[in-house]
Each structure stands twice: as C-alpha cells, then as structure tokens.
C-alpha cells in the first residue's frame, strides 16, 4: 500500500493524526496556490485553512481512485474563486501586496544578502504577478498549477475537471499573453517605490 493510500485509509476512519499529516504535507502548496490566486497573505492563510476544514468535513466525497493533491487543489481553487467573488471591496493591487509584504513580517525565500539582488527579485515578482493578473482566471490557474505547483497535465485536468487538450490550450494562451506582457517596457518608477519599501 502506498503512503498516500495509507493516509487516505486513515483519513477515512477519522484519524486526527492522519489529518495533521495531511495538513503538514500540503499546507505550503495550498497556501502558495491560494496566495497566487488571491494575492493577499492573510486571505491565503484563511483560504488554505478553509480548504483543510472542507477536506476533513467532506472526506467521504473523496473518490479513492483520485489523487489527494488534485482534490485539495480543486477545493483550494473553488474556495479562492468564491473568495474573490465575495470580495466586495476593491482588491488591493498585486503590486501593493507584494510591496507591503515587508511590513507584514514576511520574508523572502531564499533570503539574499545582496540588497540589489533582493530588489531585483522583488521587482520581478511584481512584474510576474501583474502579468498573471492580465490573463484569464482559468489560464492563470492552469499555469500556476503547472509551473509553481508542478502538477502534471493529467493532474491539472483532473483538478480543473477539464480535458488535457483544454489544459494545453490554456497553458499555450497564457504563455503567449505573459510573453506579450514581458515584452512591454516595465513600470516607469518601480525601483523608486521598491527602494522606499526596502
């Protein structure tokens, strides 16, 4: 019996230790996925915890032949989308979120001793996240799942409940849009802003 199957068996009996193991194994992936989708660390933590609560409460709906990761990502995707739809206030821009992260006690990984390098990385993060906001919700989700969460095309198809052909199509379109965004000149004064925050 594989490790995941064993975990599934234990979860199905309501084993709290198994639940904790599930949380420990997936908390970072789900958190970062939610963060990429909603752009706010506080919301991302709320969503990730909500995902685990939903997973535990609704574990009887989990199909044994499915993958735990795909199932959790799907819950995370739905929860994040619900969150974005509920959010009535104008969301802060991704750039604000990224730049504000220094004030929230968040640190970057890896922590670079070179402040110039750190600034460049932060600026790149801003540009990528801004570019990702320009693509459609589905294109972004597929790209995030593949590129940052390293799900296979099959797993993404299972998570999003779409065909592999659609997954490829979304990825292809997303890449083209991102390339277009990166081909444009960058923000006129991002480094000044970054310098202030740094």
């Amino acid at each position, binding site marked *: 019996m594989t490790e995941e199957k064993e975990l599934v068996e234990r979860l199905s009996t309501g084993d709290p230790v198994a639940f904790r193991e599930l949380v420990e194994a997936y908390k970072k992936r789900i958190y*970062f996925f939610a963060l990429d989708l909603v752009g706010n660390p506080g919301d991302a933590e709320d969503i990730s915890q909500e995902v685990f609560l939903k997973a535990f409460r609704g574990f009887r709906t989990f199909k044994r032949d499915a993958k735990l990761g795909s199932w959790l990502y799907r819950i995370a995707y739905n929860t994040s989308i619900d969150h974005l739809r509920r959010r009535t206030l104008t969301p802060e821009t991704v750039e604000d979120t990224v730049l504000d992260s220094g004030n929230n006690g968040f640190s970057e990984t890896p922590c670079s001793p070179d402040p110039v390098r750190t600034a460049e990385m932060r600026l790149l993060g801003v540009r990528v996240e801004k570019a990702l906001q320009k693509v459609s919700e589905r294109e972004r989700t597929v790209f995030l799942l593949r590129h940052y969460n390293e799900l296979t095309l099959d797993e993404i198809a299972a998570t999003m409940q779409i065909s592999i052909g659609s997954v490829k199509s979304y990825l292809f379109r997303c*890449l083209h849009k991102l*390339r277009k965004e990166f081909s444009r000149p960058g923000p006129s004064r991002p480094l000044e802003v970054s310098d202030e925050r740094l």
Partner: protein
Amino acid sequence: MKGCRKFRGLVVEALFENLDPGAKPFFEEHLHSCPDCAAEFQSLRDTVETVGRRVRRDPGREFWDGYWDRLSRRLETGGKTAVRGTSDPAAKRFGRFALWNPRWAFSAAAAVVLVAIGIMVGRAVFPPRPLPVAAGRPAAETQPGQDPATDPVLRARIYVDKSKLVLLALVNYVPSGAGPQVLDLSLEKQVSRELVRQAGGLKSDLQGPGRRRLRELVTDLETVLLQISNLESRDDLEAVEFVKQGVESRGIFLKINLSEMGGDLSPSGREPAPEKPPTRKIKT
C-alpha cells in the same frame, strides 16, 4: 512551412513535460529547419524561465510552525470539525460534529421558513371559509322552522344530548384514578333531577308507532337519571358503580346510538322510517 501547426501543438509538452518519444524526432527536426518556429519556441522558453525566476514570498518558519495551532483554534471556535475516535483533545471535543454537515440544516431551516411564508401568504390571499352554520352548531340546536316548545322530537334530542353528557361524566369516572374526596356529582344530580321532571311530559308527547323506540329510550334514561338524582352521599362510590352497571346492562349508549343512526332523533319535518313488520324467512 509544412509541419508548423503540428509543431505548435507540441510546444506546451516540450516546455512543461517530456515530449513523447515518438514525437521528439519530428519536433527537433522542425525546430532546426524552421527559423520562425524556433524563434517562437525560444521566446516562450525565455518567458517560462523569466516567470520561473520569481520567488514566492515565504511567510517564514514561525508562520509555518504555528499553522497547525491556528487551524486547531479555528476548529475549536468554529465547532464544526470532525474527528471520530480521536486522541486529539481539540478534535475530540468537537468529534461529535465530525460528520455534521451544516448544509442540510440550513436547507431544512429554509424549507421551514418557506412553508411558513406559504401558509401566511395562503391565509392572506385565501382566507379560510367560515364553517357552515349547521356544521358548527351542536346537534340539538334549533334549526329554522323548529320550535322546541311544540316539536317533541327536538325536545327529545335535547333531552338525549343532555342525558348523554351526564352519563358520560358518570361512566368515565375512574375511582382508582382519583380519591373519593374528589367525587362531586352535585351538578350531574341537579341536571338529572331537571331531566327527570321533563321526562313525563316528553313521553306523553312522543306518541305514535314511529316514536316507540325513542319513547323507550327516554324511559330508560329517566330510570338511570332518577338513580343519579337520588345519590345521597358525596363519596358513595358503591352507588355510583351501581348506576354505571345499570347504564351498561340496559345498553343505554347503544340505544342512543341506534336512535341517532336510525333517524329517530332527526327533525320532525322528516318522519323516521316506519318500523317494518318482521319479515318471514323464505324457506328454501
């Protein structure tokens, strides 16, 4: 150029996953032979690499170390968590909510609210019809065209109804269920005396062959009511039992029911069916 379309169909797999070994020779050959597709592929690869250099902000070790504690607290405060047979104190505390899905409760509450709203709206739009006067009226109440003073059948109905009430009160009394001190039949005795006084006049008015059964019923009732009116002691349970046995042995309630069903107590405008002479059995 030939094969560009097929090449583009393989770009995503080439960038993100290993190409299928069968498609790899074609892909590489086209990549070397088609400058446009090669440039396109290179630019997309650069984009992927650029995006890949982005480092996501990690909240830090402290955040991750406290993640489970915060989730546990959320379980406690939410009270909706879920563990069966658990050794975890927090989960154990809320274990009985394990499989409780609040969704059905909300659905049930919504259904109740909808039904209540439906009833209110229904009552507002379609007010309940007033009951027909006859339906809400006691059986012995006067109907139009009837005069209790001149109609003996109506008087008999009133008499039977009142007698029935007195007898029911007496018969349904269970001595074992209450102490003898609570036996107070003063009202029944008073009503019985009044009914006994009425019985003589009523019997004389109920003349004719069609009233015979009703007359006999009034006579039986008069006898029992006389016994009730003559009860002397408040706590004379033996006398009460004697009266109850008399009611039973005479089949008073059966006779009342038969009279009601047979039309003896129907309004005098409609004569009861004449009593048929006994029919002969046909010998076969």
